[in-house]
């Protein structure tokens, strides 16, 4: 065929490198509703759920049993299950009905009922739902802090810059798992240098992650994954009871934690049992609720290519975020993995979460260029900062981050690297040179950093764990190195772990260590004129409007 010139050019557009597929329900390639999904149902006898979503109690698998025993508010269940799903869906966007009144219904739904309610909503209605059902009044954001060679000095500098930019939480992970103690330590020092009160985690295997938290080297955990089918869960090497116990282990050490799940994971693992992604995710959300965790990170996450390959994929992703909120959980809403070649599609990936406002709009945003993102690249990275600031300014909507001055970034990066330098010295770890500190202040990518002896670092990281180094030792090293303000921030973080205020739902800290959670700063949105609006928050509004790119009309040469 002779090619039509416009079609020829269209074919070469970035969007056409994205892979999309036809629905295939038998293999779970269906976003919101599969013919194999069960119909919502419940039977309660003497306070015990004897039938749920068409299955009798004797046929329950471990996930069903766990949800039935712990996840559903049984007292309201029969009434709610008999309520038309459209009616519950309407409550989500009705400004006359409060957040709390909606929860009375939505926390009593079975997985299939939750799925059915979400299926009544279009994308705009989901945004409205998120506005009301988000737990914390003010949205926040989370970033990734990593680099391809686990360079600790650059990690500290990037963590500090990201903290200064406003991220409330920072998540690191490793290129090589044995580097984990250094990564945790570097981001601890960097984040508290950038802005006291920022929380941070190190995403590694379950046991190591818990150990790092126990040592005070991290302050929260997130990558505690749950899955929606029994075989996937077992393949993930856990059961609902082991995950629930792990949740309590974290709380017993005063460490904030949330679970992680996401549509498409069961498809990737090969055990979707022919169910839709939304139904399986509803099970994950209820599992999390049943475990008594305060929150959940979901929104397909690293599996985002799966739901976005089928129709209604991104509607489903916002739907699962909203469903977590409807079960009274903190919601960290993904947008943390690159999936599209198209800038337009990439932007729309987070528009629902951004305009609706969630507890953590991204989880997370790449605080390094994508080639240095060892989570395999985020949907947004450092080169998107200014685009985001413009969008916040355009829409009068918080993204949880703001513009910073170049000289402030250089200074805070240098200070974080210097603070880590004295910590390494105090703890007897391989030397950080002045040259490395200076490079970190100005670095963008890991290639900008002087090379370190990787083997020596790795050995020292293991040795640091063997020696039982804790946050107390880090504080001592900072005092000895004359970084009293950073030492004080890390001490405050440890004190907060003793008190546990930040174990409550959706908790973060401001720079003065005031906790903001769903208990004391709960979302009071109930229609126009209510709730958090960044344009009514003078300090924050100034940070997103008064930015270096702005031209003052007085100096504008007409």
């Amino acid at each position: 065929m002779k090619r039509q010139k416009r079609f020829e050019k269209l074919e070469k557009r970035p969007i056409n490198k994205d892979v999309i597929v036809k629905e295939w329900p038998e293999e779970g390639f269906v976003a919101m509703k599969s013919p194999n999904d069960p119909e919502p149902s419940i039977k309660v006898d003497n306070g015990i759920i004897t039938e749920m979503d068409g299955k009798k109690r004797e046929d329950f698998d471990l996930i069903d049993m766990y949800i039935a025993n712990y996840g559903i508010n049984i007292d309201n269940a029969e009434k709610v299950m008999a309520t038309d799903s459209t009616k519950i869906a309407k409550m989500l966007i009705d400004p006359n009905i409060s957040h709390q009144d909606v929860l009375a219904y939505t926390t009593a739904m079975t997985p299939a009922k939750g799925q059915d309610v979400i299926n009544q909503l279009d994308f705009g209605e989901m945004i409205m739902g998120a506005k009301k059902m988000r737990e914390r009044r003010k949205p926040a954001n989370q970033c990734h802090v990593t680099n391809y060679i686990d360079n600790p000095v650059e990690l500290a500098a990037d963590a500090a810059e990201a903290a200064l930019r406003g991220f409330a939480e920072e998540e690191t992970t490793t290129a090589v798992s044995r580097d984990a103690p250094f990564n945790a330590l570097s981001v601890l020092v960097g984040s508290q240098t950038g802005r006291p009160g920022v929380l941070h985690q190190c995403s590694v295997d379950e046991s190591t992650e818990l150990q790092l938290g126990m040592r005070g080297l991290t302050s929260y955990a997130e990558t505690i994954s749950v899955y929606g089918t029994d075989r996937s869960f077992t393949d993930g090497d856990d059961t609902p009871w082991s995950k629930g116990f792990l949740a309590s282990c974290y709380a017993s050490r005063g460490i904030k934690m949330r679970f992680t799940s996401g549509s498409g994971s069961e498809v990737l693992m090969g055990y979707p049992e022919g169910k839709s992604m939304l139904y399986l995710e509803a099970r994950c959300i209820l599992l999390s609720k049943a475990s008594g965790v305060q929150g959940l990170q979901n929104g397909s996450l690293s599996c985002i290519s799966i739901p976005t390959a089928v129709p209604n994929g991104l509607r489903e992703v916002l739907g699962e975020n909203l469903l977590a909120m409807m079960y009274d959980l903190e919601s960290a809403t993904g947008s943390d993995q690159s999936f599209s070649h198209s800038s337009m599609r990439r932007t729309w990936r987070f528009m629902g979460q951004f305009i609706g406002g969630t507890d953590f709009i991204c989880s997370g945003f790449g605080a390094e260029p994508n080639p240095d993102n060892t989570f395999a690249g985020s949907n947004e990275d450092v080169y998107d900062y200014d685009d985001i600031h413009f969008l916040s300014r355009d829409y009068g909507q918080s993204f949880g981050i703001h513009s910073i001055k170049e000289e402030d970034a250089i200074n805070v990066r240098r200070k974080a690297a210097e603070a880590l330098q004295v910590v390494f010295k105090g703890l007897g770890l391989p030397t950080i040179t002045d040259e490395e500190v200076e490079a970190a202040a100005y670095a963008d990518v890991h290639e900008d950093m002087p090379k370190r002896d990787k083997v020596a670092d790795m050995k020292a990281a293991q040795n640091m764990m063997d020696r039982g180094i804790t946050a107390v030792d880090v504080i001592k090293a900072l005092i000895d190195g004359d970084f009293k303000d950073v030492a004080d921030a890390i001490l405050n973080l440890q004190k907060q772990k003793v008190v546990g205020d930040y174990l409550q739902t959706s908790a973060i800290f401001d720079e003065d260590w005031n906790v903001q959670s769903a208990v004391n700063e709960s979302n009071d949105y109930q229609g126009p004129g209510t709730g958090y609006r960044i344009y009514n928050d003078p300090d924050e509004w100034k940070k997103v409007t008064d930015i270096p790119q702005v031209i003052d009309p007085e100096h504008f040469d007409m």
Partner: protein
Amino acid sequence: MSDINELVSNILKQVDNSDTASTQYTGTANDSSSAAGKQYGVEDYPLYQKHRDIIKTPSGKSLNDVTLDDIANNRVDRKDLRITADALKMQGDVAGAAGRKTLQMNFDRAAELTKIPDDRLLEMYNALRPYRSTKDELLQIAEELKSKYNANICAAWFEEAAKYYSSRKKLKGDR
């Protein structure tokens, strides 16, 4: 602070007036806690601002007595900056009063686990993972939780797991 208080009292009013899921968890439902026998509510939160005098470290230190100076002079043990069972029960009260029963149950389990050494706790977690333990091994841990740590809620958790792992084939050798 007045804004926060107003907000909290509004929430309480709202919860009290509705025959919702949440109401059952508010008020005086929980009689098993707490630290000093007092029932804590959302108005007591944040505890750091409102009850710092009550919160202690595991060795009984007041938080105001943990300073940079104390750390510089080795007066703080590495493991002393940890949450106690009492603080977790207080947070459980707050969670329950805010309508979050499952979060409160988690904090109740956690309160029992504060006494268990890190290494043993990790072993217990690993024992609950699929195909790791026989039914007897899980029940032995339940017994240990009861007799050694007075951790009755967690013991029941292990007993429940043993029962369902047995019927749903997640015990050692079931693979």
